[in-house]
């Protein structure tokens, strides 16, 4: 089936070449980081994780959200999603590849990476995160590929694939729960030390992922002869709506606990993010941008008349993606480190090389996504004829 990726229009090849160029540029900047050390990033002894780990967290969410098309189809027999489960699964695969790369570029000593396997520490959540993410990627790749090739041959997929599907459903919840546990169990990091962290992660995943999937479906509809379907997009729109409401509600719960209790440790990171602390306010415009887009998204999603218009739904999805990306990809990680363990404020902002390395990783993810989607849509076009 992979041969489908080798036959494409000039526009397809143009896009592939652009992605390869960005991957190359990102790799070049990574070589610079590899020789000079992580000092070329904006991270410091006070904010010791930054953009990379934020992206890891965001894309684990996108990966987990694949379950939002898989679950209704396989558990509730919602037939309409049968057309697009493979798109959800392949999006999950591409996302996990980005997650793995973001962890790798964040490591101070990449050549020693296998120490995680050679000297595993079962009390380390990072060890478990590595396991659940890798297994989830394999599950989705194997399931998506087998279901697709069965479809190509016009045969039902094998029984063991269904077993893997049933495993992959709780597994999707596990990857984002475990990723939330990376943060939620650390003493002294008040912004992260919250029992609702995993629930917040899942809710933000289940709105941002399907929102991205809707946008991808619209792109697929525009550029290929395969139509993911109107009903499918509308159902995804409802999922995005519920999840976004929950996501904002959960964040409001955090605000209540922090500001009604008036405990300084709980309030300070939120004050830093939304109002600035001790004269430092780098993230304030970003967080208010996120709040604005979250508000607009909720408005457009909750009102049925706007949600039902595909174009408006697309705008709402863009708003959801922006709001959740700022919240999780920037605010979450930085807010955990500001103020620091000494109640001092040191700010973080990514540097140009750091952004370029991230662009390289994103491009790699989109390259994998392009290839997988090319294969999927070509098969679906062929079957339709």
């Amino acid at each position, binding site marked *: 089936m992979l041969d489908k990726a080798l036959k494409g229009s000039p526009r397809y090849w143009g896009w592939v070449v652009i992605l390869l160029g960005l991957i190359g540029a990102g790799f070049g900047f990574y070589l610079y980081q590899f020789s000079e050390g992580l000092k070329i990033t904006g991270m410091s002894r006070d904010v010791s994780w930054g953009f990379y780990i934020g992206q890891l967290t965001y894309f684990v969410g996108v990966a987990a959200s694949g379950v939002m098309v898989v679950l209704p189809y396989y558990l509730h027999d919602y037939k309409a999603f049968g057309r697009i489960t493979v798109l959800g699964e392949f999006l999950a695969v591409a996302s996990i590849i980005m997650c793995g790369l973001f962890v790798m570029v964040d490591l101070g000593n990449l050549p020693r990476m296998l120490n995680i396997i050679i000297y595993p520490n079962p009390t380390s959540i990072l060890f478990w995160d590595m396991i659940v993410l890798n297994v989830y990627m394999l599950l989705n790749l194997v399931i998506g590929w087998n279901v697709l090739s069965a479809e190509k041959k016009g045969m039902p997929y094998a029984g063991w694939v269904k077993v893997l599907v049933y495993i992959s459903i709780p597994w999707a919840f596990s990857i984002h729960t475990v990723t939330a546990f990376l943060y939620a169990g650390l003493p002294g990091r008040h912004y992260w030390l919250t029992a609702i962290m995993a629930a917040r992660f899942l809710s933000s995943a289940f709105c941002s992922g399907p929102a991205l999937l809707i946008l991808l479906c619209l792109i697929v509809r525009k550029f290929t002869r395969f139509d993911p379907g109107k009903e499918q997009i509308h159902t995804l729109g409802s999922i995005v709506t519920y999840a976004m409401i929950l996501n904002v509600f959960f964040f409001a719960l955090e605000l209540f606990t922090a500001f009604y209790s008036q405990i300084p440790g709980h309030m300070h990171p939120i004050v830093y993010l939304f109002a600035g602390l001790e004269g430092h306010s780098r993230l304030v415009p970003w967080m208010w941008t996120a709040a604005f887009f979250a508000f607009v998204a909720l408005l457009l999603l909750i009102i049925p008349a706007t949600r039902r218009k595909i174009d408006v739904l697309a705008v709402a999805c863009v708003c959801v993606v922006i709001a959740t990306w700022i919240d999780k990809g920037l605010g979450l990680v930085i807010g955990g480190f500001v103020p620091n363990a000494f*109640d001092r404020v040191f700010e973080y902002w990514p540097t140009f090389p750091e952004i370029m390395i991230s662009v390289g990783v994103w491009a790699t993810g989109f390259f994998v996504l392009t290839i997988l989607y090319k294969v999927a849509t070509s098969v679906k076009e062929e079957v339709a004829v």
Partner: protein
Amino acid sequence: MAMDRRDFLKIAGLTALLGIGGKTGFELLAPGAAEAALKDIPLTAGKKWGMALDVLLLDEEVMDACVEACHNHNNVPHIGNPKEEIKWIWKETYDHAFPGQENEYLAEAFKKKNFLLLCNHCTNPPCCRVCPTKATWKREDGIVMMDMHRCIGCRFCMAACPYGARSFNWGDPRKAPKELNPDFPTNREFPMRSMGVVEKCTFCAERLAKGLFPACVEAAAKVKPNALIFGDLDDPQSEVRGALRKRYSIRRKPELGTGPNIFYMI
């Protein structure tokens, strides 16, 4: 350091054994026998190393001497950039050393006074819990040890440590500015590390193994005896336990349940 008759006899016996037998005698011993014998030497036999700092004796001179001795012994360079600074032991004011404990009516003497901070060698260390490669772990003698040659540089331990006691090599320590580090490396017997790994205070474990006090304790004793009292918190007869019985002491963030083993006698 007080030594009773029993300890003296053990050391004398061991010295004689090693001295007479030399290398051959050493090798003839059953595996682990020499190590077992060494365990009876006081400074190598602690079960729970800890430290009490006498805040009233800790003036700038003592603290600076401690920092310098530590960083010289452990090859910690001056980076010259506060964002990348590596600190094993350092000075910090009361409101930042004990955040949440400050109040506006605090005694004048404490308002501007610096405290000496270092790894707390916690009884229940979160850093060891989160390390994915066991590059940092809790030794049987209580030291939170760090293997800079296994560390992959994920910095999970830095996120987990509530005391800011861990430092990352953002760049290559060998490339630290020459004008700030004319004699670097300051201790050729101590290993260098590569960039991209985390490091921290080890209570000078390799000095303890030789029966020597940590570098900071030794340096403090030269300036002001008893400012830093190091010893075995498991031993009721130890000097540190005696000091803690007599004086009121506080610890950093005890409410987090990490069980810090550095005590500040105020």
